[in-house]
């Protein structure tokens, strides 16, 4: 029985090697994936070089701005530029669609700017060319095309019944077919994984311990995803009357799972929890801000009185500090309340959209693997929001430092006060801290669960396929 099954497996592999159509398709996918690794490597390396150069140049500008009013410096302020971590080789995630630079100026929480997708020359976008893209879209298609005929073709030729009567039982037959397709998948994916790991190691900023775990979980997740694809291919092949029927059904499933469902999920999520148009968002913040003091006009009488009480004096002239500096800080505090509310609402919309889209993982495993892949690569929306929040926290701390300096040293001069240039070197540099693996795991565990549920469904399908083969032999 085992000998018969082994012979079948050898025959299938030989057929695959001899079938030039499939061999060429597999080779094309492999070359594409390796090209994707190279393209991603160059993109990340170039981005990081640009960023480091620009940050160094900007820091020099900041340090050499000479004597200046701290509030003038606060308006000039600095930019947070988002680094791309080496793991983005695996999956660029939301990176191309999210802004990677934030102006951290006084009075305003600015949204991120510089979306790389704006520099694309075409409106036709089926995803960013990357290892993740090849594994998510092309690898399942190839496995479906190769797997469609593995059992259906035996049935068409009449060899399925022959195999069964000559001692091969359905279970071992399915297991062998699974092994064949699994080996084809492994032959294709292992070189891709090796190239990706090498690229990550070569990029600056690689952190072996953290990234090792991430790559391992990333690889394991894709192994499950592709295992599900392999099993679906075998199950459909086992239950189809002909190879062409199996192929059409599998291509239909692929279309639904990779192109329709994730996009439907995105469209439905945008309808269920619509993000406000930028103009509406800006108008709402402007309306909120209009009711609040700017810090420039000294019109907040209640605040002035509270400052006088705090310092135990009766007139502004007796204050040991610059009232303008304190007013600016108060204005920031009030503004921050507005930003916290409005940007909090926007982030809540994004979270609802994410939850709505995640549900589609139940219909297509691609949605779950996309979430896991982006999160482990540090290129998901949670990482983007972490960047935005860290930049905002940095903005607030820097503006407070500058306002405090003006309050402390600017008495009697206010906006004419010029700070000592030494002040600029005490202002910290923005450094983005990627989300730790523990936080990432907390974010993606529902997706991992959904993927495991798909794995369970795959085993169920295998059992059905075995039963179908057994019954069709009778």
């Amino acid at each position, binding site marked *: 029985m085992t000998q018969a099954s082994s012979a079948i497996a050898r025959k299938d592999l030989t057929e695959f090697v001899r079938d030039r*159509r499939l061999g060429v398709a597999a080779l094309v996918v492999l070359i*594409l994936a390796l090209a994707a690794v190279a*393209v991603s490597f160059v993109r990340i390396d170039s981005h990081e070089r*640009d960023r480091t*150069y*620009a*940050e160094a*140049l*900007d820091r020099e*500008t900041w340090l050499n*701005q000479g004597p200046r009013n701290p509030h003038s410096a606060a308006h*000039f302020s600095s*930019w947070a*530029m988002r680094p791309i971590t080496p793991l983005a080789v695996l999956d660029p995630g*939301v990176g191309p669609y*999210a802004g990677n630079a934030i102006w951290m100026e006084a009075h305003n929480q600015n*949204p*991120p*700017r510089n*979306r790389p997708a704006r*520099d*694309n*020359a*075409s*409106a*036709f*976008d*089926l*995803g*960013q*060319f990357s290892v993740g893209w090849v594994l998510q*879209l*092309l690898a399942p*298609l190839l496995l479906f095309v190769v797997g469609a005929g593995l059992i259906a073709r035996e049935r068409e030729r009449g060899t399925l019944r022959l195999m069964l009567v000559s001692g091969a039982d359905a279970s071992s037959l399915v297991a062998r077919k699974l092994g064949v397709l699994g080996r084809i998948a492994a032959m294709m994916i292992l070189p891709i994984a090796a190239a990706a790991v090498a690229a990550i190691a070569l990029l600056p900023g690689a952190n072996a311990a953290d990234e090792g775990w991430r790559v391992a979980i990333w690889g394991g997740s894709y192994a499950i995803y592709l295992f599900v694809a392999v099993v679906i291919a075998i199950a459909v092949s086992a239950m189809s009357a002909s*190879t*062409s029927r199996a*192929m059409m059904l599998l*291509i*239909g499933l692929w*279309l*639904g799972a990779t192109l*329709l469902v994730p996009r439907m999920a*995105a*469209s439905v*999520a*945008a*309808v269920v929890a619509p*993000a*406000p148009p*930028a*103009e*509406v968002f800006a*108008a709402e913040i402007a309306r909120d801000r209009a009711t609040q003091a700017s810090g420039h006009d000294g019109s907040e009488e209640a605040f002035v009185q509270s400052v006088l009480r705090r310092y135990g004096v009766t007139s502004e002239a007796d204050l040991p500090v610059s009232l303008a500096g304190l007013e600016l800080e108060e204005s920031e505090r009030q503004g921050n309340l507005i930003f916290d509310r409005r940007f909090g609402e*926007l982030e809540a919309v994004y979270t609802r*959209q*994410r939850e709505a*889209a995640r549900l589609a993982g139940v219909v297509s495993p691609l949605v779950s693997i996309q979430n896991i892949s982006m999160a482990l690569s540090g290129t*998901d*929306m949670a990482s983007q929001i972490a960047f935005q929040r860290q930049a905002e926290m940095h903005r607030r701390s820097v503006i407070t430092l500058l306002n405090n300096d003006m309050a402390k040293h600017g008495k009697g001069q206010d906006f*004419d006060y010029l700070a000592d240039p030494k002040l600029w070197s005490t202002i910290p540099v923005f450094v983005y801290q990627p989300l730790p693996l523990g936080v990432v795991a907390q974010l993606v565990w529902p997706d991992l669960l959904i993927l495991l549920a798909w794995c369970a469904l795959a085993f169920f399908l295998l059992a059905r396929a075995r039963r179908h083969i057994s019954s069709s032999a009778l």
Partner: protein
Amino acid sequence: MLRLLTLETRRLLREPLALAVLALTVLACLLAGLSGRAVLDQQLAGRAAFAQSSSDAADRIQKQIAEATGPADVAFLPVRVSSPIVAPAPLLADFSAGRLGIEPYSATLNLRTRSDTLFRTEQLDNPELLARGSIDLGLVAVVIAPLLLIALGYGLFTQDRESGAARLVLAQSGSPAKLLAARSLPRLAIVLVPLMMTVVALLFSGPAIAGRVDAAMVWLGLAVMSLLFWWSVIVMLNSFRISAETAALALAGIWTALVVVIPTLTVAVAQAVIPPPSRFEQIAVARLAEISATQDYETDHPELVSEDMQGWQASMRKSATINATVEDRVSPLSQAFDARLAEQQDMVRRLQMLSPPMLASDALASIAGTDEMRFRSFRAAAILHLAAVKSFLASQLERDSVMSQADVDAIPEFSWSPPPPNYVWALALLGACTALISAISLNRFGALRLE
């Protein structure tokens, strides 16, 4: 012929695969329609909010001028007045969303605005959803419908060959052309009718924008031509002596190459071969220029410390001069960036010849008014307008008197006509390819009768 057509239609409608394709097409069109409406509504709501806030700002300035008790109340008007600009809503935002999710379409220009920081209002669409992509009618026509046509057509004639019924079927139908027509029309209808109905539904339920119906008809014409191109490929594959399995495999391969691989590679190759200059460097250079210009100006203009009308005007002139200096220094970088992008665009346009679906998709977005070229044209017009506004406001600073309401009303107004849609080349190429492939197929099928 009619009898044959009826027969084939009945046979087709009994096939579960055909019904599944019909259900999928209807579902995709329905979702595309709903999603398209949401996009259009968002575009209109954004423009309405912008118009309202611009109008409020203009009212505030008017009130400030009307209630001014002295020059001090209106002294800073040259730096406070602004010129709002907004691109008109695309004609068919609900058909092909194109780049709507990432491109800004409004800005408020004043004396302090620079061309490199002109659009401060960033679209807030969730990047995660943008990365996943969305469904619109353009996607249905270019990506989904061709694959559904392949499912309906891979065995159009190959299955008859496999079953040995080919000669019999040909003999019964009278001629290969009649057989092909009778089999093609109901299959095309399964995909085209829901698409056309969605177009009509969107037109009836959408806003009455001048030119929208004409644009929709052109859009539909191109979408139909794109599907006819695919059908001609399917028919040609059926003219070869291959099995249904090989036909399915070949068609799936062609679809994957033309729709998925080549377009994605085209963009990646263009970016790798012609990388745009660094946006980060652009920011850093602008800031360096700003600091240098500020220091130079302050050294040369000690009168800035005075707190009277003369001092205020000097302060505003300082702002304008620094702005102009920074603009001058950043301008070469911005121009280099635009030139690189234009080079990239040219390269993509050349490589698009390898993928008719990509060509069709970009042409559909162009007809819809959501393509890259339209936004580039809008940005270029906005930069020209910015120069005119700044020049006008700078001239106000040179006067001894403050700005009046008449001066505010005289601020140049923005006018921009979107470039004409760029679809003729795509339509011609698709038409030529379709005609050529159809002629080859008909010739091959014609030869079958003689066997």
